[in-house]
C-alpha cells in the first residue's frame, strides 16, 4: 500500500517521495511489483533495522470490519526519527494508509509554522462518535501523528528530540501523562511532545490547514473508482455489522482497515498507470 500511496502523492502533489522501510518489506515489494514500479514510486529510500524485541512485544488488534479481528505486531518505533531520516528541507510525514486523493497537502508548503499536526479530526460517517480527544480523561489533547508537516528548523528539531526522549523513557511518561494501556503509540508520544514544546500548554502545536478525515477499521472499501475517488462501506453507528454506502472524492482520507486497502491496491495501481 505504501507504493500505491507514493504513486498517489506523485500524481496529486508532484513532489519527491522518501520511503522508510526495512529490507524484508523492500525485497517483498520488489518481488511483487518489480523494480520499475518501485523506482517510479520512490525517489529516496531509507532502510532501517527493526528492533526485533519491540516488534514481538508491541501488538495491537487489527480489524477487517467488526467481523474479523487479529492481534498482530504494530511496528511504529521509528517515527520519532523522521527529522533525522528525511532528506528534505520541508517534509510531510504520512502514514502509508493515508490516501492522498487531492492536492490538499500542498497548502502546507512554505508555511509560517515549522511544525504542524492535527488534533481535530472528522469521521467520514458523521453519525458516529468515537471518544478520541485526549490520551485519557485527565490527560492532554491527543494529536494524530498520521500527517505531520515539518521544516528543518530548530523548533521542529527540538520537537523530534523530545519525541525521542519520550520514546526512550516511555514508562515514566506513560505515568506522567496518565496514558493507559501497554501499546506504544506515536499519536501519544507526539501529543506529549507537543504539550512539552508548547511550554506545557495544551494544544501547544499548531494544526494543519485542513481537516483530517478518517474511516475506522470497522469500515470497508468497496471500490477504487479512480485515483481520487473511492466507494466506502461505513459501519452504522447504531447497527454493528450493517453498513452505509458512501462515495468519497477529491479529499485525502485515513483508511484504518489495512486489508481493505490491500484489496483495492491493484485497482488503484491500474488507475495510476
Amino acid at each position, binding site marked *: 500500500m505504501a507504493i500505491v500511496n507514493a504513486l498517489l502523492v506523485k500524481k496529486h502533489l508532484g513532489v519527491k517521495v522518501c520511503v522508510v522501510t526495512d529490507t524484508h518489506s523492500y525485497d517483498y515489494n520488489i518481488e511483487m511489483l518489480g523494480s520499475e514500479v518501485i523506482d517510479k514510486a520512490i525517489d529516496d529510500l531509507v532502510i532501517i533495522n527493526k528492533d526485533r524485541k519491540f516488534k514481538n512485544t508491541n501488538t495491537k488488534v487489527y480489524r477487517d470490519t467488526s467481523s474479523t479481528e487479529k492481534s498482530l505486531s504494530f511496528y511504529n518505533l521509528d517515527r520519532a526519527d523522521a527529522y533525522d531520516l528525511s532528506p528534505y528541507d520541508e517534509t510531510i510525514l504520512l502514514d502509508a494508509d493515508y490516501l492522498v486523493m487531492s492536492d490538499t497537502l500542498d497548502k502546507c508548503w512554505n508555511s509560517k509554522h515549522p511544525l504542524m499536526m492535527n488534533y481535530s479530526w472528522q469521521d467520514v460517517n458523521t453519525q458516529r462518535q468515537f471518544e478520541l480527544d485526549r490520551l485519557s480523561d485527565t490527560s492532554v489533547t491527543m494529536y494524530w501523528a498520521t500527517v505531520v508537516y515539518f521544516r528543518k528548523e530548530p523548533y521542529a528539531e527540538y520537537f523530534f528530540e523530545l519525541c525521542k526522549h519520550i520514546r526512550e523513557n516511555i514508562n515514566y511518561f506513560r505515568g506522567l501523562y496518565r496514558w493507559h494501556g501497554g501499546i506504544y503509540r506515536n499519536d501519544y508520544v507526539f501529543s506529549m511532545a507537543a504539550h512539552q514544546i508548547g511550554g506545557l500548554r495544551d494544544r501547544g502545536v499548531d494544526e494543519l490547514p485542513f481537516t483530517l478525515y478518517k474511516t475506522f477499521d470497522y469500515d470497508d472499501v468497496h471500490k477504487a473508482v479512480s485515483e481520487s475517488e473511492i466507494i466506502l462501506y461505513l459501519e452504522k453507528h447504531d447497527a454493528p455489522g450493517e453498513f452505509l*454506502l458512501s462515495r*468519497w472524492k477529491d479529499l485525502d482520507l485515513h483508511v484504518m482497515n489495512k486489508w481493505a486497502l490491500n484489496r483495492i491496491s491493484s485497482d488503484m495501481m491500474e488507475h495510476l498507470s
Partner: protein
Amino acid sequence: MSEKLTKALEFANYRSTLNNQRSILKARVESLLSYSIDGGTFTIDPGLISFVKLLKDSGQESAVLLDIYKNPIMVNLEEFFDEILSRYIESTNEYYAEYGKLVKSRSVKSLLDLDDE
C-alpha cells in the same frame, strides 16, 4: 416483515446515506474554499471577499491580512481578490450542481451514482 415496514427501513437507509453524502459534499466545498498563499491560509467567504474589495477600492495596492492562524500575511490586493473571487464562484457553483443532484436522487443507488457499478 410487512411491505410497509420494509419500505420504511429502506427510506431510513436512504435518509442516512443522503445526510452523510451531504456532509461529505460540504467537506469537499470547505476544502475548495481554503486558499493558501505565502505561508498563510485563508478561508474564502463573503466577509473576506468584501473586505479585500473594500481595501482595493480605497486605492491600496497591497495590505496585511490575518490568516486562519491570525498570522499577518502581506498580499497584493488585485491578484488576491481575483483569485479568491474566482475560487468562491467556482466552488459554490460546483456545490450548487452537486447538491442539486443529491436532493433529486430518490434512492441510495442514485445518491451514489451507482448505476454502472
